[in-house]
């Protein structure tokens, strides 16, 4: 497997990293094979943004996408997920520096919402993207991460079932 990875590298695809850098912050990084002005455009023009922000594999569809990308301007995204009630995500832009930096708030979560800072760093025709989500407190980030209350027990049960089924399969 490893040998094949070296023989057939996919130059179009770069690695995504996610790291909790502090009690209050999560950072996602990825290199994009294009200059910063183009990547910035993909973040700020709604008709482009909506083509990539909603991953098809997550079974979501974007009902509307309004981005007023200027300092103090607002954004509003409405998603639907498998026939459930639509969910709205909204906030405002607090810094817009063309081709290098975007900062927006996430207000649908009330006071617990993170502030998202995106930096675009161009190197040799490629752009290193870093997305920082800074939460107002450790508690707010933990609440985000730990929002699966009640899920653990159910999943433990499911785990047990999987193990049992796996054992059955092994015998058959």
């Amino acid at each position: 497997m490893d040998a094949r990875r070296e023989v057939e590298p996919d130059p179009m695809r770069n690695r995504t990293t996610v790291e909790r850098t502090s009690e209050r912050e999560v950072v996602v990084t990825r290199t994009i094979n294009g200059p910063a002005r183009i990547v910035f455009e993909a973040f700020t023009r709604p008709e482009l943004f909506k083509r990539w922000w909603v991953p098809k594999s997550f079974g979501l569809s974007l009902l509307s996408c309004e981005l007023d990308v200027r300092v103090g301007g607002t954004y509003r995204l409405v998603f639907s997920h498998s026939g459930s009630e639509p969910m709205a995500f909204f906030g405002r832009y607090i810094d817009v520096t063309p081709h290098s930096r975007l900062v927006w708030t996430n207000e649908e979560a009330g006071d617990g919402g993170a502030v998202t800072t995106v930096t675009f760093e161009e190197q040799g025709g490629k752009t290193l993207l870093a997305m920082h989500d800074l939460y107002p407190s450790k508690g707010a980030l933990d609440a985000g991460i730990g929002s699966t209350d009640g899920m653990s027990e159910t999943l433990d049960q499911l785990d047990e079932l999987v193990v049992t089924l796996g054992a059955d399969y092994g015998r058959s």
Partner: protein
Amino acid sequence: MWRILNHMVQYRQARLDDSFGALSDATRRGVLERLGRSDASITDLAEKFQMTLTGMKKHVGVLEEAGLVTTEKVGRVRTCKLGPRRLEEETAWLDRYRQLWDSRFEALDEVVEELKRKERIDGRKKRG
């Protein structure tokens, strides 16, 4: 916008039927059992279960949707491993978060490639 992930986790909880549905198939149970021993690529799994790549991709997709398996594409190889449900909660969350971003960036790559092509064509027109 980060909250979308939490909403999705909650929907997944409400849709546990998916997980049990995923387990209703002998091949998929076999895949889980196989991944319990070590990670494997889709190609490995297809060979082991004597199926087409397309068929195996479908099975892995069902397991992935149910959160029982995660996949990561490095180069042209998609590696499968047991899902985040077996990991610590925070690790699981970060893993899902990474998957969400990975999918987003894959689509962003396409948009950026298209814009680059368009720039090149426009550039040629201006020069011409």
